[in-house]
Structures are given as C-alpha cells and as structure tokens.
C-alpha cells in the first residue's frame, strides 16, 4: 500500500491539475471573502452584517464553500483523469489489486483536499480579520471558533475530495463528473435542504459546509436556511461514511470493469 500511496501523491505533484484546482479554490475564496468583507454592514453586495458582529465575521472568515466544492471536483478528476488519459492501465499493471489502488487514491485525495480546505480557510480568515482590524473592530468571534471553522474546512474538504474519488470511479467521464458535483452542490442539496431541513445536515456538502462555518448567507454555494448543524464529529462521520459508501459502490461495480 505504501508504494501505491507514494505513487498517488507523486501523480498529484507531477501534473498541474491539483495545483490548478487548489489555486482556483483559493482565488475564488479570496474573491468572495474580499467582496463580503468590503461590503459587510453596508447592505450592499451579499448584504452580510458588519464584521463587528459574530455573524458578519463568520460569514467572511467561513466563505470556504466554493473550496469545498472544488475539493470534491478534484477528487473526481483524480480518478476520471486516469480513464480519460488511459493511465488506469498502467496503474492496474503496477498494482493489480484495484481496491487497493482506489483506497490509495482516496487517501491521497483526502490529504490534498485537506490542504485545499486549509489554504482556503487561511485565506478567508486572513481577509476577514484584516478588514475587521482595518476598521478597528474588536474580534467578534472567539479564536477557538475561528480555528474550528478552519479545521472544519480542512477536514470537510479532505473528506469531500475522498468522496469525489469514489464518485469519479462510478461516473468515469470527467466532464460529466464535474457537472454532477456542481449540480449536486448548487442545486440538489439546496432543493433537498430547503424542503427537508432535518435531512440537510446529513447531505455531504451541507455537512462539510456547516463544519467549516459556512452560512446560508455567506456561502457559495449557500446552504439551505434553517438547517441545524450536526456536532463536529458526527458531521465528519457522515462525510467519511459517504466517502466509504461511494468507494464501496465503485469497488463492487465500475472498478471491476474491463480496462479496454
């Protein structure tokens, strides 16, 4: 497993895909955090409260929703790319145990996804706190809460990235998989969450977003209003369960298919 895992990390480091998506996630996060911070308390833009309030500061420092979706996309690209470029053949010749390859991919994805989440959280936090400090506001949120949002973004992005590996193995078609992830994050969870708020915390993006402190007002994609967050550990367990379920479904179906 060590060799397969090393190879998966090396694959991520030797193409621009992971770095490009991570860069995009951080850049979009920075843009959203800047827009939110700049307009906070003015009633313009996304109309978030002042950064002097806990809600306003939370909206700004936890504007990591897009990074969470980007992490899930990265997970799907990690596996779909192997089929798109026909590099899956080489991977399965190196290690014929396909479940082991899938597990190594999920682990590597979890690590790189966590880094994406952490980078996005650090960016949003830096921007939000920077604007608050520039306006002379006192820190409206306890430091522990801000750290928890950052940890939630890292853990949530890592687990969503791992779940993306399973989803990518099931879908295989790269463009289709990317569209499916965005459709899920921007449409399915909003609709389901809006109609069944009790179910929403158990949906993967919503669970990760709530861990990261994303709100119905500040997230892109947003989460449905009125959803009550699960405890941090329970939300992480939900996400891990989704990742394991998707991987298991892939392992018993598409991963066993002929590589023609």
């Amino acid at each position: 497993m060590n060799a397969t895992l090393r190879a998966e990390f090396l694959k991520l480091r030797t193409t621009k895909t992971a770095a490009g998506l991570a860069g995009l996630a951080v850049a979009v996060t920075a843009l959203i955090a800047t827009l939110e911070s700049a307009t906070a308390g003015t009633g313009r833009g996304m109309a978030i409260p002042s950064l002097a309030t806990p809600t306003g500061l939370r909206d700004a420092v936890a504007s990591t929703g897009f990074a969470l979706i980007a992490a899930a996309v990265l997970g799907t690209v990690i596996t779909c790319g192997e089929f798109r470029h026909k590099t899956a053949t080489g991977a399965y010749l190196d290690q014929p145990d396909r479940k082991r390859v899938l597990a190594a991919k999920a682990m590597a994805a979890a690590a790189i996804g966590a880094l994406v989440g952490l980078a996005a959280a650090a960016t949003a936090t830096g921007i939000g706190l920077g604007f608050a400090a520039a306006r002379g506001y006192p820190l409206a949120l306890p430091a522990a809460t801000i750290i928890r949002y950052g940890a939630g973004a890292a853990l949530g992005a890592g687990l969503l990235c791992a779940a993306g590996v399973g989803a990518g193995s099931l879908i295989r078609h790269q463009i289709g998989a990317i569209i499916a992830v965005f459709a899920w994050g921007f449409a399915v969870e909003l609709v389901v969450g809006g109609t069944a708020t009790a179910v929403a915390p158990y949906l993967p993006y919503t669970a990760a977003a709530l861990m990261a402190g994303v709100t119905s007002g500040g997230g892109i994609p947003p989460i449905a209003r009125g959803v009550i967050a699960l405890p941090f550990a329970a939300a992480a367990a939900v996400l891990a369960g989704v990742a394991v379920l998707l991987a298991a479904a892939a392992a018993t179906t598409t991963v066993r298919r002929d590589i023609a």
Partner: protein
Amino acid sequence: MPVATPGAAPRARLNGDGAGAVIELRQLTKRFGAVTAVDRLSFQVRPGTVTGFLGPNGAGKTTTLRMLLGLVHPDSGQATIWGNRYADLGVWRRKVGVVLEASGLHPGRTVRDHLRVRCAATGIASARIDAVLEETGLDGLASRRAGALSLGERQRLGLAAALLGNPGLLILDEPGNGLDPAGVAWLRDLLRRLGRAGRTVLVSSHLLAEVAQTADQVIVINRGRLISSGPVSQLTAATGQAVIVRTPQAAELRAALVAGGAAVRELADGRLEISGAAVEQVATLAAARGLPIFEITKETGSLEDAFLTLTAGERRPG
C-alpha cells in the same frame, strides 16, 4: 548499450528441457456482446524465446494480451504467467514489462516524472530511470511533457517504462507503431538483445518482416482462434518453397521435370520456377540429362506469404 540481465531467468533454466512455459493460455475465451473476440485460444510461450504474436486487425491480439495481464476478464479459460495469474505474481513490474498502448500517458507529465511514478508504484529504484532513458534514446527528452511527444517517442517511453524493472518477461503490443525506420531498426536490435540476454518476449505486431527478423517463434491468430504456432522457419516452409533455375535448355529441363511429377512455371525472365521437387532432385536430373545450369536457388516463402495464406478468406475488413 547492452541490456542488463538481473531480471532475466538463468539461461540454463530458460532453455533447459522440462522448463515450464512462461506464458500459457488454456481455452481462453472472451465475448463482447454477440462478438467472440477470443475463441478457446490455447498456446504456450517457452522461456528465453522471442515470440511474435500475429493476426490481422480485429483478430483478438490486444484482448488476449489484456486478459493475460488481468485487465480484461475472460468469460472462460485461463491465462497464466509462470503458472500464476498476473494478479498473483507479486512485484509485477520487476517480473513483467508491458507496453500496451502509446496513449497511456498523462499529457501534462514529463517523461522523467512518468517513469518516477512507475518507480514509486513498484518500488523500483529511481536510479534506473537514467539507464532506461539512455537505452531507449530518450535521454534528451526527459523534461519534455508527454503531450509534446511524437507517437514514436511515446512508444519509446512505453518501452522505457517496461524495461525499468529489468523484467524477465516482456509483453509488447505493437511496439513498432509510430516508429520511423531508424526507430524500427532500433526496436529490432533491442528485441534481439533482449532475446540474447535470455529474456522471454511476446510481441504482437503487424510488421511481419520485423517479426521474421527477430522472432524465434510465431503464433498466428485470426478471429480469436489459433491458426498456427511454431518456429518462423517451419511456418514459412509450410507455405511451400520453390526452386528457381536458369538454363539455356529450359524446354528440355521442363519436360523432364514435368515427367517426373514436378510443377514448372516459366518466369518472365526465362527462368523456371519449380515446385514439388527439391534442389538436389532438380540438379541431379539436369546432370543426368546433360543439361547445363547457370543458376539454381531455393526460394522460401516469406512470413508475409505464410501469414496471408493462413488468414486468407478469414480477414475482417479494416
């Protein structure tokens, strides 16, 4: 540069009597819907041989190789390498080097990084990378991205990856595709050196002349079924051989040969092409009749002739 031999099995075992087959297929069958791609195919590849795996397009060569390597699941039958399924071999790339398709490369990854990934995945020391880059003539392209390589360069990269682990067995699917004439000559030389180093090589190809020059054995399949297998010389001889004679008294020699039961055809340049009689028989007959002979040669059919004869009427279009 000589091919290193650590991964090759010892010569004594490779060529010793009683040594088992390196590759063995038994009644291997694969269907894709209504199409039977491989149909109860059985053959063996002996240790230390370079074996050509021939067949027209759509004959089932690639599907066969993919089943052998565990990438495609057979409907029935078995394919083993040293008596095991590929998946059960362990340290796979150190035992089996594989070239399946030139497109199995991430276009954004450099040549060196592609080989680094193979090394990382298989535990092969990355110190081998420079050696295989030099062996395959890619040492000047190590930093080039795979997407910028020509088809021939991609084939060389595939071969470089296959050689990384110094494997005792190489399975190559159309490795000559995309190579320029110099590349084809290089590949021919490489296969010969691999053979001399005691490696077992199974190489599928449609470049029959190349196979004839490098292979010890050939396996011919068509429509998924075995058509012929054996030494190249046996296969070409089976397609018939002729004796070519130049004599100023062609009519007399022709009459004598026909009377003896041979078939004679006069070529455009006046020489006689005789089938059904050996060189010795023709020469003895001419001497007995006092007929002068200026030239006498034995002409054996080419592998291409043999291939076309064996697959005649069964080839699929395209």
